[in-house]
């Protein structure tokens, strides 16, 4: 953004991050001692059962909640500064489009809020609509789109300010399997094209392995990171990858890490 922005090749750096929610029954530790580094351009998934704090961690990175302890920096800046500087784009499980705005106006909302000129905005919106394959739908309203298309609009919107970090909280969680696989492929392409780092929260093991460079496995009570698995699946993520032994191997590895024990395989019995 500005020349004074400290440069670092770490998109996210968390050291000893913890989050405590006060409740009537006492304090509940949602996250403890989280150590995590996400390099610029890296795709990292957070996976774990409900209550493991993966969404909480994402919200801390986004500065939608504040960490109770530890230090969290985004591109070397405090999370709050990074949010104000628009260093990240975010997408949730629900598309969260504004129903009274057209697709184009929804994609352009972040730009409009940051006083980007009309001509520049229109050009950027057209570019983004092209990127997510919605050029023919820019004048439609959200209620005229399928769930998958709404989610693509949300992704385009998260990319509008050209963030170097994308935060995604189960963005494909509410979609059917076919749309989901299609959008996974699209997302890897978009992430590669924009060079943005991605922190991706998911429930799905195959999804995490297919998309990520690293899968961060988390565990509940208290929420913490229990394992980090490098997928090492390379740059190209296509349909052939879903059938490859290397992919299945990693899926198994993540599953074992999630269950905390070695999963007995049918052919080894």
């Amino acid at each position: 953004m500005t020349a004074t922005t400290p440069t670092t090749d770490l998109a996210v750096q968390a050291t000893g991050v913890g989050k405590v929610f006060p409740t009537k029954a006492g304090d509940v530790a949602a996250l403890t001692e989280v150590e995590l580094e996400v390099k610029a351009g890296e795709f990292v998934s957070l996976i774990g059962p409900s209550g493991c704090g993966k969404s909480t961690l994402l919200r801390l990175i986004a500065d939608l909640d504040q960490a109770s302890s530890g230090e969290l920096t985004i591109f070397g800046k405090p999370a709050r500064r990074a949010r104000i500087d628009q260093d990240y784009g975010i997408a949730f499980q629900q598309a969260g489009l504004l129903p009274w705005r057209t697709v184009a106006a929804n994609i352009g909302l972040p730009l409009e809020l940051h006083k980007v000129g009309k001509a520049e905005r229109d050009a950027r919106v057209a570019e983004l609509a092209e990127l997510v394959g919605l050029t023919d739908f820019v004048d439609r309203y959200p209620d005229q789109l399928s769930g998958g298309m709404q989610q693509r609009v949300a992704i385009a919107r998260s990319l509008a300010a050209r963030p170097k970090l994308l935060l995604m909280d189960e963005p494909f969680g509410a979609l059917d399997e076919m749309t989901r696989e299609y959008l996974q492929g699209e997302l890897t392409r978009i992430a590669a094209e924009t060079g943005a780092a991605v922190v991706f929260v998911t429930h799905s093991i195959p999804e995490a392995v297919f998309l990520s460079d690293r899968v961060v496995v988390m565990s509940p009570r208290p929420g913490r990171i229990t394992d980090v698995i490098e997928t090492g699946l390379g740059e190209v993520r296509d349909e052939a990858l879903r059938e490859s032994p290397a992919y299945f191997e990693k899926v198994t590895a993540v599953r074992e890490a999630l269950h905390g024990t070695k999963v007995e395989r049918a052919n080894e019995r």
Partner: protein
Amino acid sequence: MTSGRAQGGAARRWVPVAWGAAGIVAVALLWELYKFVGPSEGVVIGQVEGEAGSGVLILPRTHDRAMPHIWTMIGRLFEPTSGGSTPPLFVSVAQAALLSLGIAAVGWLIGVAVGMLLGLVMQRWKLLEWGLLPWIVVSQIVPLIAFAPVVNAIGNQIDRGGTPWPQWLSVAVIASYLAFFPVAVGVLRGLEAPDRIHLDLMRSYAAGYWPTLLRLRLPASVPHLLPALRLAAANAVLGAVVAEVSIGMRGGIGRMLIQLAGQASSDPAAPWGPMFGSIVLGLIAAGSVALIGLGLKNYRRGEATA
């Protein structure tokens, strides 16, 4: 919208109109039916023989002085207002109704402005919501008929030196007193309507209070605001009519209603003229607000989850 759906919508739009008309016809038929079968002196129970006025009237009298025929009421609209060469009743009713409508409109505007302001500050500062909302609710319990002369008296004392406080302004203020309530509550609820996800998004865009208000809260409040504005319009008309009677302002439909009702024993169909007039008045007021809704159609779209 596809054109097919629009055509279907045009046909379907007549269904509520037909039901509305059927309702009016049903009421008229019921009126005439009871007038035909009911006893002329009504049904009284527990009457003591030879003692006039004793007992309890449980079904109304049906003679022409108590229940004029529907056609007599309609026919009366075209006869002179108070005999002689005075204009037909419907003309006088229309003039009175227009005056009341104008006053109610001013009251509506004041009420909407005050209501919106209250809604905005209550949403902005939770403390003000806790402090104000109970009083706003209590304010509506104050009987209007007692409150109206007070407003008029205060008004008269405000401007003794310069131009005098016009009576109609008192009526408008009282109308606004009824009109502001649904707006304040509706705006408050509407501004709090946005989903958590939308608020999180605005926060992630580092959007402050005003951009969030303009781009998110206000547009999201429209579905709550429109019914509130319609209620406010109906309330403003009601308030104007009652206030006219209460402070004795001449020329409006409320005053006319009272005047003609006083002569009902000799001219039983006459009070029905201003009564129909005030019904039409309420419909026009609510209908004009519905027109605002047409212009805000896009803010009433639901996001399909498909």
